Structure formats: C-alpha cells, structure tokens
C-alpha cells in the first residue's frame, strides 16, 4: 500500500469522480460522502508521500511498469512533496465547507458539480506529481476544462468571463505544448529528468531558448502574471463561491509550481540564471505586477473583485521571488505557494459564507457584519493579517524571505514593491473592517430576521473556515521546520 501512494493520490479522486457521476443519476445523497472520502484518501496519501520523501528522498513511481524515458514516471521530491498535501487539504476543506452552498445553488446538478470538482482536483494533483512534460499538458487541460465548467456557473456575466478565460487558457496550454515540442525536437525525450540530462550541450541553441520563453509565456498566461492577467478578475468574481474558493487558491499556485519545476528541474538554474540574461526583466515585470495588482485592488468597491486583484499581486510575489536568482528568493517563492494557497482559501471561504447569508459581496452589503457573523469575520481578520504580513501568521515569513532575497540580490525595487503592496493591503482590509464594524447592518436585502443580532453561517461552513484560520497561524509558527526540513532540499545545491 505504501509504495502505491503516488498512484492512489491521482487515481482515487478519478475513480470516485466516475462513481459520483453515476451516483448523481441514482441517488444524489451519495455524492457528497463519496467525494469527501476520496479527497480524504488523497490527502492521506499526499501526507504519507511527504513523510516518505522526508525519510527516503526522491521517490520514482513507474506507471505501467515501464522505466522512465520509455513510459511515464512520477517523481516525488521535496518540492512537490510539499505542494501535494497543500492542494489536497485545501480541496478537502473547501469541499466540506461548501456543501450547503452547492446544494443551495445547484439543487439539480449536484452530481455533475462534484464530478467536476473531483476531476479538477485530480488534474491539479496530477500536474504536481507528474514527471513527464507531456503528461503535464494533458492534466493541465483536465484542470482547465473542469475549471471552465465550474467557473461558468455563476452570475449572468460568468459565461463571457469564462469564455475569455478559455481563450487565454487554451493559448497558454498550447504555448506550453509547443515548448515541449521544441524540447522534444532537440532532445527526443519527454521525461523531465531525462530532458534535463540531455539539454546542457544544447544551451546555446535557438530552439532551446525559444522553448524556454514559450513555455514560460504559456505558464504565465495560465497563472495570470501581470500583462497577461486580464482574464482572471472577472472569471473569478462572477463565478459561484464554491468554485471560486477552489480555483482561486489552487490554480494560480499550481501554475507557479509548474514554473518553478520548469526552472529548477527541466532547464536547471544554470541555464535560467547564467546563460539567459532575463532575470532582471522578469523581476521588473513582477514589480509592475505587484504594484498594479495593489492599485487595481484599491480601485474596487467590491470585496470579491478586490481579492482577485490581490491574487494577481500575489502571483507577482512568487514569480519575482523565483526569478531573483538566489536561495532566499526561491525559498520565499516556494513557501509563498503554500501560504498563499491557504490564505487565499481563507478569504475566499469568508466571501462564500457572506454570499450564503447576505447574497452579495459589494462593500455596501458588508455593513455591520462583525456583529452578525463574528466567527466568519474573525477568520477574515486572520486571513487579512496573513495577506498583509503580520508576524504570527504565515504570510509574514514568506514575505520575509522574499525581502531578504531581494536585498541580497540587489533588487531594491522588488523590496519596495513588496512593502508598498503590504501597505496597500493594510488600507484595503482596514477599509473593509471599518465598513463591517462601524456601519450598522442594512437590511435592504430583506434577509435579516433579527436586526442587530447574530446570524452566523451554518456550523458546517464556519468550522472548516476556522480550521483554515488556525492552520494559517500554525504554518506561521512552524515555518522554520518547513524551511529547514523540506524547502531547503527542494532547491538545488548550485543555487546560492
């Protein structure tokens, strides 16, 4: 059983998605327990894998029993060993929290919704665990297609926003595919480790350079890195809350993981930082991304849309950190994948609870919410503290590493952008808190039966949210362990 964790991790959600799909036509009440059991199993395997990696080092799992360059293999090392539990736990908590919301919004389509949800998680886990460049493309498309389906069910504008996402996502995935094709034409291999072994003599080739640029642009499109971010805010804002709180924390972070995987494993740091002279340009782009994300968030009068721009800014943090070209920057970027997934989950789940109770997420809908939904707003405070970067929460530590990295590589503008965006986040969230705290609750929506009294979201929604808030603080407290025992080994020795 122990050796089969890598396969179980992906196969269990896949098989259960099929079971749920059939169960949706037979008995709808079966869908939720099956989905929770499957994601629980996936989370269990992911944690088991991380422990095994800590014990034994890199694990190779041969699918179909064919050895790597011939068949497809999974490589689990410290980098994806860390990301896997995050993805599966985020998906599990979000599923439990949104049970009521899903039943409220799609009473007739529960089966398809859970099916797509599970397939999406399958795709994301597969992307993270795979060691084959082409396999990654297929899984990318699974995650993308199911994501389009989930995001398009929402407000009236959701389908248009999603169709734009589909165009951009397809261009991104196709660019990635083309880049893999370029690598294949010069090396003849598709396995990541094998490509990395064959590439060094070819570092001067035009084709390799173009492959790298095209893959990067494709991945940036998918993760909404600044000039290519236009699809993200609308697509995430108008979607239903269960989908947006799954997709907003995970998709962009998994794509950042893919970028780091490309930089560290396929192309190796030597090529990325020594042969190419692009790292300054990309860090500058990241600076612009962070500043623009913060400024655009400031212009919004709508909580969910404001958060989507914060997601854009956070992508800038991670790309910039990864491209700083030193150990601290990369540590910060990898740590930030974990932290940002958790804190984005936290704030989007808060939005989900608010939407469930108040049916809106514009600023004027938030009045008096501290009195009405104290636990939800408490979690929002923790999430906001983490995004701002206040010490006991985890957001502080990854920012710390990023700033240290920026200083030691001399990119002071990046450091300035980080501090600027933290200050803007302070303004953003305190504006929200002010509205929620001081202004009396307005019942113009007519959903409030006890004016002034407490009217919290159901327990099943609040408990997972509070768990996430606690995890945010715990991850913050154990940052040292995560960095020393895991991330440190994820970064190649060559990088200083």
């Amino acid at each position, binding site marked *: 059983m122990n050796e089969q964790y890598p396969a179980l991790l992906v196969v269990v959600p896949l098989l259960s998605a099929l079971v749920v799909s059939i169960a949706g036509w037979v008995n709808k009440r079966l869908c939720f327990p099956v989905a929770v059991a499957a994601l629980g199993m996936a989370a269990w395997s992911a944690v088991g894998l991380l422990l095994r990696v800590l014990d034994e080092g890199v694990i190779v799992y041969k699918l179909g029993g064919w050895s790597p360059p011939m068949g497809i293999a999974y490589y689990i090392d410290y980098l994806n060993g860390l990301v896997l539990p995050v993805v599966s736990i985020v998906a599990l908590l979000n599923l439990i929290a949104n049970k009521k919301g899903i039943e409220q919004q799609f009473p007739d389509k529960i089966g398809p919704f859970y099916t797509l949800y599970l397939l999406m998680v399958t795709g994301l886990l597969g992307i993270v665990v795979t060691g084959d460049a082409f396999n990654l493309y297929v899984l990318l498309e699974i995650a993308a297609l199911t994501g389009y389906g989930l995001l398009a069910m929402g407000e009236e504008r959701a*389908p248009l926003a999603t*169709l734009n996402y589909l165009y951009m996502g*397809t261009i991104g995935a196709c660019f990635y595919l*083309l880049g893999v094709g370029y690598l*294949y034409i010069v090396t003849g291999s*598709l396995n990541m480790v094998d490509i990395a072994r064959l590439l060094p003599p070819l570092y001067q080739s035009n084709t390799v350079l173009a492959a790298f640029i095209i893959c990067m642009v494709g991945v940036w499109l998918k993760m909404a890195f600044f000039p290519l971010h236009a699809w993200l805010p609308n697509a995430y804002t108008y979607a239903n809350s269960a989908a947006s709180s799954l997709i907003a924390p995970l998709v962009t972070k998994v794509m950042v993981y893919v970028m780091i995987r490309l930089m560290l494993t396929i192309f190796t740091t030597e090529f990325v930082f020594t042969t190419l002279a692009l790292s300054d340009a990309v860090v500058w782009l990241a600076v612009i991304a962070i500043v623009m994300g913060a400024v655009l968030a400031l212009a919004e009068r709508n909580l969910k849309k404001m958060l989507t721009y914060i997601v854009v800014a956070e992508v800038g943090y991670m790309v910039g950190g990864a491209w700083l070209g030193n150990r601290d920057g990369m540590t910060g970027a990898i740590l930030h994948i974990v932290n940002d997934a958790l804190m984005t989950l936290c704030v989007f789940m808060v939005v989900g609870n608010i939407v469930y109770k108040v049916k809106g997420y514009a600023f004027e809908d938030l009045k008096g919410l501290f009195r009405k939904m104290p636990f939800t707003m408490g979690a929002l405070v923790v999430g906001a503290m983490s995004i701002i970067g206040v010490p006991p929460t985890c957001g502080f530590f990854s920012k710390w590493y990023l700033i240290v990295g920026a200083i030691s590589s001399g990119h002071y503008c990046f450091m300035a952008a980080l501090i600027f965006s933290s200050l803007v986040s302070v303004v953003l969230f305190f504006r929200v808190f002010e509205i929620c705290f001081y202004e009396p609750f307005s019942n113009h929506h007519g959903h409030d039966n006890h004016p002034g009294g407490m009217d919290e979201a159901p327990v099943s929604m609040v408990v997972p949210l509070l768990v996430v808030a606690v995890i945010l603080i715990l991850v913050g407290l154990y940052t040292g362990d995560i960095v020393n025992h895991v991330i440190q080994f994820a970064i190649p020795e060559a990088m200083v």
Partner: protein
Amino acid sequence: MTDLISTVIAKYNYWIYITLMMIGLYAMIAKNNLVKKIVGMNIFQTAIILFYVSIGVKKGATIPILEHGHGPDAHHVVHAVDYINPLPHVLMLTAIVVGVATLGVALALAIRIYNNYNTLEEDEILAQIREK
C-alpha cells in the same frame, strides 16, 4: 540567395505551421465574433499538431505499423530506420482529443452567452453590460 531558398524549401512544413498558428492566434485576439474566435482557436491547435507530426516524418520510412505474418518466421528483425517515429503521433492523438473537448466546452459557453445577450458579437455584449 540560393542558401535562403534551400532553407525555405527544406523546412516548408515548419513555415506553414508557423503561418497557420499565427492566423489562428490573430483570429483569437482580434476577431470580434465569439464563434470566429473558436474557429481560430481550433486552427491554432491543429497548427501545433501539424508541427508535431512534422517532427515524426522520416525520409524513406513507412507508416508505423509493423509488417508481420503468422507462422514460424513471423518475427523478422525490425529496423528502426524503416518506420516513422510513432511517438509524436501518439502525443497528437491526445492533443486532437483535447482539442475537440475544448471545442465542445467553448461552444456550450457561446450558446449560454447567446441565451443571455442574444448576440455573439463581443462589442455588442460589452455595450449591453455597460448599459445595465
């Protein structure tokens, strides 16, 4: 000059795939009609498939299905140079499937948008959104 011409001719498949890809990309960015964009998207994807298939071509080789008979001398020696590289074909089968799946989803979205706004022109839809 002859050099240039010989490079152009030697790799004409690659130039055509670039042309097709750029046609598709331009349509996806610049066209106003949603279904036209979807057509562009499909052209874009098939162009990449053309590129991959072009990788697999091998001079003087035949299709990747082994000649075989039944009986005692059925297993004769197979030489790699006699058969076209099968790996790109396998990858592209997958890519075609992904393409048709994306097409189905995109058309479903287009129909939903049409039901909401009664038009497929992007600028008209945006004008309707602004009016609200």
